[in-house]
Structure formats: structure tokens, C-alpha cells
């Protein structure tokens, strides 16, 4: 009878024959590393991922975006320019007024990923990792050698751009030029890369741009690839990096630091310890190279000169996606109906019913930079708190130059030109235009936008920058005055503004800086320009009182008054950002001074 027992045992054991099969993961459509780089389509898709995580795009975003990878693109609810004297916003979402205006940002809050300031270094490093993964694996892909080199150069450029993104805020940074192995906790000690000096970081980015430029095409024939990296972008990044590196914040004529620094190691991390005028010369050459590339090599890149009316011409740069002036730009993740764009629109004009508009509004401080169309200054003799007639407001603003008309939507004009609908902001209506805090609403980028139209593109590099970069650098090396004038006037003539004349280096410097403010209003240039010029701390710039012209619905005629709208906190340590506390606590990062 024992056989029955044996049968029983055998019965049991038969259940296990398929042991491993029973616990085997079913075949699925999972993608592994080999199946990514074996395939041309997937290799390309991974390159798009490098683009998507790179910091090309800087428009504002919606604060509650659940994916933190949004955050290193621009700030929450407003453009970064709101931190400077250019713009002022309202509403509960924007992070910039809450943290930058009040000076309540620090190493613990700079980029923990929850509150939407404009910078998250750890996310940028994810983008760098993606670029490194791509560069190390693209050789396995079935593309031709030329294609591989060109694609690798794209990733190389994006990696350099992200390093620049970090450097312009932090100074010298940890350079990551390969995929760091962190598959085990035991690897961590080995990847604690210290900060490179500022000089080393500049050299790295410059040489990477030079390397990428060797392989990048001048143009992509297929227009569907608008937005891909061309050779000009690599030259442009190099030119901008060298201009920044030559500027006073990093290359002070007297070797002074923005706050006292005693530690010689730290001194080298935040800039060049000693002045070298030749850095300006390098900037001159690099910027001239961009202009030369555009004129001689690109076959397409030039200052935009369409339309008869200079207002339309200037506006067109920011709304025409194929404008030949743009060297690199990025499309929005959503169409214009998404929150990203809505935040930039005035009140509730488009679309109606939009809650919590940020109402980007130009400040009076910045309005003063605009000349009249004849090239002379507007007379601003208003006294604070005194009422002046509305007609005077309209006249004075109406006289300002074309770039003001194109960039600002002021009271008493149409939002959509030719529509016949004129808005007076002092009037009470449901569009919330009355809530405006500045002189007029921002029109640049969003002119003509409807909720269904493609969103505007963020312009990373456009050719006008390199004329003014060139002029600025050339002026610093006491270059040919005629050449300096030429470069500035190229930009002014494009909007039918009269030429400027060189008198002396100091005055020319002020002219160029003012031209830069006006030409690149709201494009995030000024936020960094003010830092590298070390002028952010001047009263009414990023510090102190910000004014507006406020409208009142008085009888018999509406009036306006000069009023203060905000007060900005600035401390000199803010010339460079702090590293986030979490990184410093790991013990391999030297914190920037003052934080």
C-alpha cells in the first residue's frame, strides 16, 4: 500500500515541474537599452528626450505641473523678467514676486522642486545625464557616420548649453562629461565631483561648442526640423559665454568680488581672480564669428526686415516661427490654450473667464528706457501722487518708439489691431484689465495668440544679440568707433530708429546697455545682464522702488498718477545663486559666498 503514498508524493511534485515558468514575467513590449540604440527611430526618440530635458525653453509654466521636469523651464506663473525692473505681475501663482521680490529665497528653498522658481539644478543634471547616455550609445545605432557625428554634436551642444545654464547662475560648477555609474550606493563616494573653477567651466563649454560646431549643419533642409541645433547655435553659445566671462561680475577690472571673499579656492570658483582685458578680445572675435557665419555661411540667417511698418516688423520676430533671425528657439509643450501661455495674456481678453491672470505689466522704471521715435528722450516730469490727464498718458506713450508699441499693450489702444475694439483699462468690466499694476500689458510673444493657435516659441538665440554683444565687447577693447556704431545701428535701423553716435567709451557703454534693454525686453537677457554688469543692486533696478502710471476713472476726464507699486529686496550675495543646501550637506560642494 505504500505505493499510494508514493503516488501522492509524485502528484505533489508534478505541480512543481513548471516552477520557474509559473513565476516567469510574461513577454511584454518592454524596451531595454539594446532595443533603444539598435533602432534608428528609438535612437532618434532618445535624442528628442535630450532636447526635451535641456533648458532651451524658458517661458513660464503652471505651478501645479505634476512633473518636476517642467520646472527648470522658466518660472511658475510669470516670466523670469518679472524679477528685474522690466515687469511686474499680480495673482497668487507667480513664484518670482513671492520669493525674488521679497528676497526670501535661500539655499534651502532654491530648488527643492515644489514651489516653482526658475531654476532646478538637479533637473538640469538629469538633462546632462540624458545627453551623456546618448553620446555614449549613439555609435551602436544604425545611422551613417555623418549622421551619428551630427546627432552626437547636437547632444554635445545641449550638454554645453545646460552647463552654461548652471554656470550663469552658480559660477564654476561640477562638470559631468560622462554617464555617472550609480547603480549601487557604494558608487556614490566615487561620483562626488567637486566644482571646477569658473575658468575651467568656461573653457569646457567653449571647447565643447567648438567641437560641436565642426559637425553641426548650417541648416536642416526639411522644415519639420525647425528647432534643431545648427552650427550657428554652437557659435552663438560660445559667443555669449565669452561675453559673460569678460564681464565685470567675473572679470572685474580691479579683481574685486561682489561680496568679500577671503578663501582663494572660492575666489576661483566665482570668477577670474585677476582681470585680463584679453577676455573682451576673445568675446569680440567669438561674436564676430556668429555675424560672419550668418552672413557668409548659413545661407539664411539675417536680421528680419519684412513689413513696411517697423512695429509689425519687430513683432513678427516673436510670432513668426520661421523668422530668419532666429538661430535657436523652442516650441511650447501645449498649444496656446494651456496655462503656460494664458499666464502671459492681459486680463481675461483671451480666453474670457480665465481665472487668476498674472497680468504681466511693464513698469514705469523700464518705460523710461524707450526713446521717442525721433531718437530723443521722452519728458517724464510727473510728480508722485499728482493727477494728470489721461490724454497726456496716451500722448506720451504714443510717442514712444516702435519697439515699445510692439512690446506693450497700453490703455486706449486695440489688443487686436484693426479690430476696432479699444480698451481703456480704468473702466470696470469683466476682463480684469483694471487690475493692471504697470504702465501697460506685455504684448511681445503673445500678440495674435488665440487658445487654439500654436503657442509662441521661446527664442534662445537671435542674431540681433550678437550685434549688440559685438558692439559691447568691441567698446571695451577700445575698438574702432565706426565699427561699434555700425553694430548698434544695424539693430536700430531695423526698427527705423535714428543712428547713435560714438562719443566716448563710457557713454557708448551706457548707450549699448540701454539698447540691449529695449531690444531684448522680457527675453530674459536683462536678468543676467544686470548681474554680469553688477548693476542689479542699483536703486530701482533689482532693488528698491518700482513705479507705475496708474489710471483713475475720474470725472470729467480720466487721470493718471505716478505711484510706487512694489519694493524689491536685493542683497549682493544674490549676484550668484546658492547651491541647494542638500548638495552642500553632502560635503563636496563649496557654497557660494554669502549664502
Amino acid at each position, binding site marked *: *500500500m505504500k505505493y*499510494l*503514498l*508514493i503516488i*501522492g*508524493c509524485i502528484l*505533489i*511534485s508534478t*505541480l*512543481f515541474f513548471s516552477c*520557474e515558468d*509559473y*513565476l516567469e*514575467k*510574461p513577454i511584454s513590449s*518592454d*524596451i*531595454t*537599452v539594446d532595443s*533603444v540604440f539598435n533602432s534608428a527611430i528609438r535612437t532618434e*526618440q532618445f535624442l*528628442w*528626450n535630450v532636447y*526635451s530635458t535641456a533648458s532651451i525653453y524658458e517661458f513660464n509654466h503652471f505651478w501645479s*505641473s505634476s512633473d518636476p*521636469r*517642467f520646472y527648470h523651464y522658466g518660472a511658475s506663473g510669470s516670466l523670469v523678467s518679472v524679477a528685474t525692473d522690466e515687469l511686474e505681475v499680480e495673482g497668487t501663482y507667480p513664484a518670482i514676486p513671492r520669493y525674488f521680490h521679497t528676497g*526670501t529665497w*535661500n539655499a534651502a528653498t532654491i530648488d527643492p522642486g515644489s514651489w516653482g522658481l526658475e531654476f532646478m*539644478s*538637479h*533637473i538640469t*543634471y*538629469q538633462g546632462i545625464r*540624458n545627453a551623456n*547616455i546618448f553620446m555614449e550609445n549613439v555609435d551602436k545605432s544604425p545611422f551613417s557616420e555623418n549622421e551619428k557625428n551630427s546627432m552626437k554634436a547636437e547632444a554635445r551642444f545641449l550638454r554645453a548649453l545646460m552647463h552654461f545654464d548652471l554656470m550663469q547662475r552658480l559660477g564654476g560648477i561640477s562638470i*559631468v562629461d560622462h554617464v*555617472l555609474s*550609480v*547603480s549601487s*550606493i557604494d558608487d*556614490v563616494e566615487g*561620483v*562626488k*565631483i567637486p566644482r571646477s573653477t569658473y575658468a575651467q567651466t568656461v573653457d569646457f563649454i567653449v571647447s565643447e561648442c567648438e567641437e560641436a560646431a565642426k559637425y553641426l549643419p548650417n541648416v536642416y533642409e526639411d522644415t*519639420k*526640423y*525647425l*528647432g534643431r541645433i545648427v552650427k550657428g547655435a554652437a557659435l552663438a553659445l560660445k559667443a555669449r559665454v565669452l561675453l559673460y566671462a569678460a564681464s565685470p561680475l567675473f572679470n572685474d577690472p580691479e579683481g574685486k568680488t561682489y561680496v568679500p571673499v577671503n578663501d582663494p579656492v572660492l575666489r576661483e570658483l566665482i570668477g577670474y581672480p585677476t582681470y585680463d582685458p584679453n577676455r573682451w578680445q576673445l568675446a569680440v572675435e567669438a561674436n564676430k564669428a556668429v555675424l560672419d557665419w550668418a552672413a557668409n555661411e548659413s545661407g539664411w540667417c539675417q536680421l528680419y526686415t519684412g513689413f513696411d511698418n517697423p512695429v509689425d516688423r519687430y513683432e513678427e520676430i516673436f510670432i513668426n*516661427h*520661421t523668422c530668419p533671425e532666429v538661430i535657436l528657439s*523652442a*516650441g*511650447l*509643450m501645449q498649444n496656446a490654450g494651456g496655462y503656460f501661455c494664458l499666464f502671459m495674456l492681459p486680463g481675461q481678453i483671451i480666453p474670457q473667464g480665465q481665472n487668476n491672470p498674472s497680468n504681466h505689466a511693464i513698469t514705469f522704471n523700464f518705460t523710461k528706457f524707450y526713446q521717442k521715435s525721433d531718437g530723443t528722450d521722452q519728458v517724464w516730469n510727473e510728480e508722485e501722487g499728482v493727477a494728470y490727464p489721461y490724454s497726456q498718458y496716451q500722448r506720451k506713450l504714443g510717442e514712444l518708439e516702435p519697439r515699445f508699441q510692439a512690446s506693450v499693450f497700453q490703455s486706449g489702444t486695440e489688443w487686436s489691431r484693426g479690430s476696432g475694439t479699444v480698451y481703456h483699462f480704468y473702466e470696470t468690466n469683466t476682463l480684469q484689465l483694471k487690475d493692471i499694476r504697470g504702465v501697460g500689458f506685455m504684448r511681445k510673444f503673445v500678440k495674435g495668440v488665440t487658445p487654439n493657435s*500654436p503657442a509662441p516659441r521661446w527664442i534662445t538665440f537671435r542674431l540681433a544679440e550678437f550685434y549688440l554683444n559685438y558692439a559691447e565687447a568691441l567698446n571695451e577693447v577700445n575698438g574702432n568707433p565706426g565699427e561699434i556704431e555700425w553694430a548698434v545701428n544695424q539693430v536700430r535701423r531695423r526698427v527705423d530708429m535714428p543712428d547713435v553716435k560714438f562719443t566716448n567709451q563710457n557713454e557708448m557703454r551706457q548707450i549699448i546697455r540701454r539698447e540691449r534693454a529695449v531690444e531684448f525686453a522680457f527675453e530674459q537677457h536683462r536678468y543676467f545682464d544686470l548681474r554680469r554688469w553688477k548693476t542689479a543692486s542699483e536703486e530701482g533696478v533689482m532693488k528698491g522702488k518700482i513705479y507705475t502710471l496708474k489710471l483713475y476713472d475720474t470725472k470729467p476726464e480720466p487721470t493718471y498718477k505716478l505711484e510706487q507699486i512694489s519694493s524689491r529686496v536685493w542683497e549682493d550675495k544674490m549676484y550668484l545663486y546658492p547651491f*541647494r543646501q542638500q548638495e552642500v*550637506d*553632502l560635503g563636496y*560642494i563649496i557654497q557660494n559666498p554669502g549664502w
Partner: protein
Amino acid sequence: MKENNMNRLATFIVFLIISAGMHAADPDSTLLNISFGKQEAELSTSSVSEVKGDDLRKSHVATLSNTFFGRFSGMTTLQTDGEPGYDEATIYLRGPHSMRSNSFIILVDGFETDGFNQLTAEEIESVTYLKDAAALAVHGISGANGALLITTKRGSLTGKKLKISFKARYGVQTPTHLPRFENAYNYARLYNEGLENDGMAPLYSESDLAGYQSGTDPYAYPDVNWYDEMLSKTSDLQDYTLSFSGGNKFSRYYVMAGYMGSNGLYAHTDGKNNSNISFQRINFRANVDIDVSSNLSFALNLGGRIEDRKFPNTGTATLWQNMATYAPNLYPVRTPQGQITGTANYPDNPIGSLLEEGYGSRHSRNVQAIVTAKYLLPFITDGLAVFGGVALSSNYMSGYNKTKSYAYYEPVKTLSQVGEDSLYYIRRGTDTDLTVSTGNDGETSRTGVHAGVEYETRSDLHNLNLQMMFKQDAYSIFGQQSVFAKQNWLGRFGYAYDRKYLAELSFSYSGTDNYKKGQRFGLFPALSLGWILSNEDFIPKTDKVNFLKIRGSAGLLGNDNGAERFAYNQYWGTASRQGYNQGYFFGTGVTFQDALVQLALADPNFTWEKAMLYNVGIDALFFNRRLSLTTDLYLENRYDILVNVANTMPSFSGVDFSSMQNKGKTRNQGFEVSARYADKVGDVNYFAGLGGSMSRTKIVASYETPRKEEARYTQGRPLGQRFGLEAIGFFRDETDIENNPLQTFSNVRPGDLKYKDQNGDGIIDVNDEVAIGNPNIPEISYSANVGISWKGFDLEFLFDGNTNRSVYLSGYMFWPFINDYNISKWTTERRWTPETADRAAAPRLGVQANANNYRSSDFWVRDISLLRLRNAEIGWTYQGGALQRAKIEKCRVYLSALNLFTLDNLDADVDPETLSAGYPTLKTFSLGVTLDF
């Protein structure tokens, strides 16, 4: 193949025992449920706690876990919600164990199941809580967090041939607590105070305030208490069960059907166009045992239930929040014409949400069927048997919703030319018809198989039992690519010598599909020993000590819960952002290019959590078995807990998203004591039971984000420890503010919280946070159960409570006026004003979320201890007489009360368990009757 070796081993052992030629087991002893069988209680070396279903039924609740309060020693039970159909208790078995998952396995009649909350207590014979390594080892890879065994009732041959029992119970429920909010006048007055404190102009004029105070114009000056508008005084809960059991020589059966119905607290609903919350359930069970021959028997268990839930379309949490927070002067409930009001910013008038939006419903159908067979092999040797079984269970869920939207009317107040107020209403939204939609369908199913061999024999000196078995289990969720599969080879060898010295070795060789091939299985052994001192000759046989056993166990267990699926694989794929695939736009339009992304970083060595469990215990009976005592002391070292080590990596590694590795460690220590004394004096029977337990879990290794200050690490501190600033009072005035360190969260004003500069760096920021209070899960639980009966009358009380717990008071109950929400009376009474500066117990009012005051600090943390009378019951049983003639053997009527009162030390206007102004915990008064035929 490894398993073949295991087979050989098993066969060898079986034959070894057979050749020893022992005698068959004596079945006459108290039996304890163990995993996959029963064991003589006296000879057990495990730590378990068992409660009869009939005791659990005494708590009149809909959900089974809510009957557990105070019943099991070493179980922490927390009530977090009172919403009918969604009020499961949160349960920790010996406290929390891991930073990841603390969920444990539940077996119904020997097979794993995923839902036990909707079984009715009536169909349950007992619930057994397995605590130590000896009891849990056979569950191997899934056993470390503890286990509950639920055994359902079966027919028996003792007593009458056919027993019929009918039970009915009806209960009336009221909230244990509703928070108190301010009326319109106080709201407006205090709102002005908040504005003034924030440096802004008042919103409400003197005439507005007068209007609110007089209350003569409810439309211009509304004053709405949404609780009064929305709620009935009571809700109800009822249940009925009918059961039959009995059998004959060849078969035994237990058959039961039950109905439970419960309604929510909302008033005015009609059940057609809108609905109160309601939860109805039908449970049925048929358990049949058949002896085919003297050696072969079958058992069939069929259990099932139907659950139907209804609720308003606005989520319960939102609805209760709106009731609590909408300002009393926001709008009247309806316009003078009876239309629902609402504003653009506050469109969700609670009455509109309840009555005008239709309702949602969920229906689920659950069946579990188990067939097992046992074949005795006396022709080989007595006590030897093979057995096997199959279990199938299926849970199907579906939804049916009626939805509509409605027009609501926004009141607009204007000042006319002559300066008089005029009030008119703007229509917003539109009325639509009810539309019906179905959806939310889903199905889960489980298939379990097990088979094994067991042997038990007993002689004068030796008592041996062993069990070897294999089981496997597959759980599938509709819509998921792969099933969750587990396999387990398990065994248990128990030996007792002379009923004095006990030893048991048990093991599990188990694995799951979630790990890499070759790393799927682990061996989990446990050894336990016992010594029955009372059977030793040196202990005199008196009535004083009837039984005394010391036992100890040690073993290794695993926990595979709480891990990502197949995390050893490095995945690449498309990832979405806010519903938009990740990618990039090229081209002039919005030509989107999908991007391929490297997903979360894989860990090729990814494995399960492991726990070394140690337990020592004493079981004793004293004074002629009147006093019983059980106590246990335990220690658990848990390791290989998944933690995100990316926290400790430099950010430029670029893997910030997460990198989970088995590096975390915890240490859990505790003890349990339970004692019960029962006696009889004349006609009076009485008993008193006391239980207490303590459990503390510390984080030993956590790999957390680096901190500037040592005081901010969770490592070395209890699991569930809160961190925050230490509040040292309120700022008196501007001078006080100037003389203290700068607080960096916002500009402070007099009446704001002042914090201690812990690190002495002259500024107050997050680096000044320290551990504050106790963990958020109570470390100590206690219970008392007393009863007395006299002739037909009986009276019983069950208390339970807990302590060593801290809670964090946050949100709209405590932080007024954020989003213009209402202010609670609690805040009004405690707020800081210059006049009350010396006695204030809440910061000054403000109308914004105050970044300084409303952040984690010990000001908002409370140590809480509570004692709740969970259950009180008085009953009367009548037998014979008239009943006899009606063929009724016995009749019992009783009154019971659930959550009758609570003693706690929390100075907050919330229920001390749920801590929120959401759906409240309920107090239930019930009348019940039991008829036995």
C-alpha cells in the same frame, strides 16, 4: 531540480516516522487554528491571539476590521473615517515595521484573500492573529508583517441535528463629534480683525456688521450653518442574518444568509435624482463537509457577497470640507425663488452638490469557492494523510452614475445712485437632464492551489506532528499585464516529549515573480522551543498553578510588499507629463515628436525585505483555571528595506527621480500582556479581561536626504516621528520681533509664533527643525473587557485606548480664512489679540496662509491619549415556556451602544481618532434580537 530534492527529503522523513512505529494522535484537546491546520493549544510554541466571531459580532458595525478594536493584544487599530462603506480601520500588527509597506496577509480558510473587511462577523468562527516567527515562518516571503487567519463556521455533530439561528439588529447613529464654526456676524467681525492684522483695510463696514448681527435680511446678510442645512440628526444601520447548521454521520453543513444596510447622514435626498450615502450588503455562505468513506473526506466552502454603495457625485471629503469651510455669509442656501446659489469662485453650494448633481454608485460581487480533500492512509500507518485543495475567488466591480449639472445664481450686491443696497442674481451654469453612465468596472481574481502530506502520532512520551506542503497563488487584476504569482514549499515538524519539552522547526522555501530569475526564492526557517513547567515534578500540583509554559522562537521572514513591479529591469519608454507625452516640438506648427526616456533606475539586485524575529512568551493558568495570563516580549530586526538612495547622491548623477535599493533597516521592539479572570459567585457569573501592548519601531538606516543639522535626521528615531520648529510663544510687539532672531518664512507681526533658534545661527529657518512629539502611530494600546451575568441578564463593556502618540493639527479647522474659509470657534476662543496676549493659545488672525505660523512646529503637535468605550451591551435571554411551544429554543434581546463615550486629552474641536472635519466617526445605539430554533 531543487524541488525534487525537497520531495525526496519529505518522503524520507515520512518513512522515518513510519518506521518509528508510533501511535495515532489523541484528538481530545483544545485546538488552536494555525496556518493550514489546527494544533493542540497547550503544546503550541507560537505566539498567537485568537478571537471568536461571536465576540466580534458584538460591535455593531458594517466593516469587519471595526470589530477588532480592543480584541487582540498587540494589534494597533485606528479609525480614520466614518463614511458608510469606506470606513475600514487602519491596522498595524505589532506596530509599523517598515518605511515601505505594513500591509499583511489574510487567509480565509487557508487561502490567501485580498479583502476581508466585508465578511460578516456572523459567518466567522474565529480570527487568529499570528505574531511570531514560529507562527509565521510557513508564510515565508510574505510573512514578516504578520498575518490574520479567518476561519469560517462549519456544521458539527454535537448537540441538535439542525440548529437555526435568526439575528436582527437595528441601530441609530449620531456623529461622535461635529466641529463648531462661527456665524456670519462673528465671521465678518473676525475677518476684519484678520485684515487689520495683515495691515489691510477692513472688508465689512459697520452697516454690514449690523446687518449680520441683526440677521433680519437673510438674503442680503446670509448666515448659513451648512451642517444644519445638510444633515439629519441621525443615520441608521441594520443587519439580519439567518443560519442553519447541522449534519449527519456522513455530512455536515453550515449555511448562512445575511443582509446589512447602512445610510449616511445627509437629509433631503430622494434616492432617485440624488442620493444619501448608502451601503447595502448581502452575505451568504455554505460550508459543507462530506465523508465519502472512512478515509476520504471532502470539504466545500462557498462564500459570497453583494455590495452596493451609493453616494452623491461630489466626493465625500470635498463635500464635508465645503460644509465646514464655506463662509456663513457666502450666500444664502437658495435665492428667494428657491434656486441654488453659488459664485464663480465657490460654485459648489453643498446643497447643490447633494441634491442637483445626481449620484454615483458602485456595485461589487464577490465569490470565494474552496474545495479541499483529505485522504487518510491508515493502511500505511495511522495518522498519515495526504490532502489538497483548490480555491477560486473573484471580485467584480462596476459603477453606475447619474450625473447632471445645474444652474446656480450668484448674488450681486450693488450700491444704487441713492445709496441703497440692491441685490440681484446672475445665472451661472446651466440645468441639464440626468445622464446615465456606467464604468469604473474592474475585476480581480485569485487562484490558489495547495497539496501536502501530514502525519501526527502520539505515545505516552512522544508527541509528533509534521506537515509538508506546497502552495501557489496567482492574483490578477483586470487591465494589468501580469498576474502576481507566488509559490511556497513549506513544512512544520513539531515534537513534544512527555508534554514537557516542546520543539518545532518550520520553514518556507518561497518565491514570487517579482524578482530576477535565479533570485526569486528564499529560505525562511524558524525554530521554537517550549517548556511546560507545570508538568514538571518540582512544581507541586495545586490549584494555584494549573498550567505554566515558557516558549521562545526565532526565525527569518520576508516581506515582498510595497515594491515596484519587476524593478530589476531597466525600463525605457515614453513618459507622460500632465497627460502629455514627453517629447519635443519641432517645426513651425506643433509637430510633436515622442521622446524615449530612461525610466526609474533599475537595481539588478533588487530583493525582498527580511526580518529576524525573536519572541519569548509565557502562557499560564492560575487559581483553578480562573485566571489566564499570556505575555510576550519581542524584537524584530528588519533589513533590506527599499529606500531611495538617490537622496544621498550628488544631484549631478542625474538620477534624482529615484533609485530604490535594499538598504534600509528598522528595529521593532515591544511586549504584550493579556490577562483574564472569570468566576462565579452564586448565580452571578463575571469576568474581567485586561490587555496592553507596546511597540516601538526605530529607523536604523534610512539613506535620507543630507541635512545641515543632525537633529533633522529620521535615522535613529521612531518611524512616524514628526519634525518641526519649537514654538516659544508669540511675538508681543515690534520690539520683541527686533530683539529675536530673524524668522525667514514671512514678515512677522505681533501675535505670530516665535520659534527657538536651535542651531544658534541667528536665523530661524528649516534647519532649526527638531523631532517633536511622539510617533503618529500609537506605541501603546490597551483594552479592558468586563462582563457580568445573572440568570437571564447579561451586561458587558469593552474599552480600548491608546497612548504615546502625537498628532499634528493642521488645515482649515485650525487655520482660518485661507481662501476666505470659515473660522472655527476653537480658533476664535484661543486667538492672540493684544488684549489676550497673556492667555492666547493660537496665533493672531490673518486672512492668508501664514507661512510663519502654519508650518510644522510643536505648537500644532499634541500628545494624545484616549480611552473609548467601544462597546456596551445589556441583554436578556429567555428560554422555555411560551417559546418552547413556538419551537424557539432561546431568545435574547439586547441593547448595545458603540463608541458611547471617549476620554481624551486633546484640546481640539475634532474627533480624537479621525482628527478631521470630514465624515465623522459615529456613535451607534442598537436594539437586537437573537432567536435560536
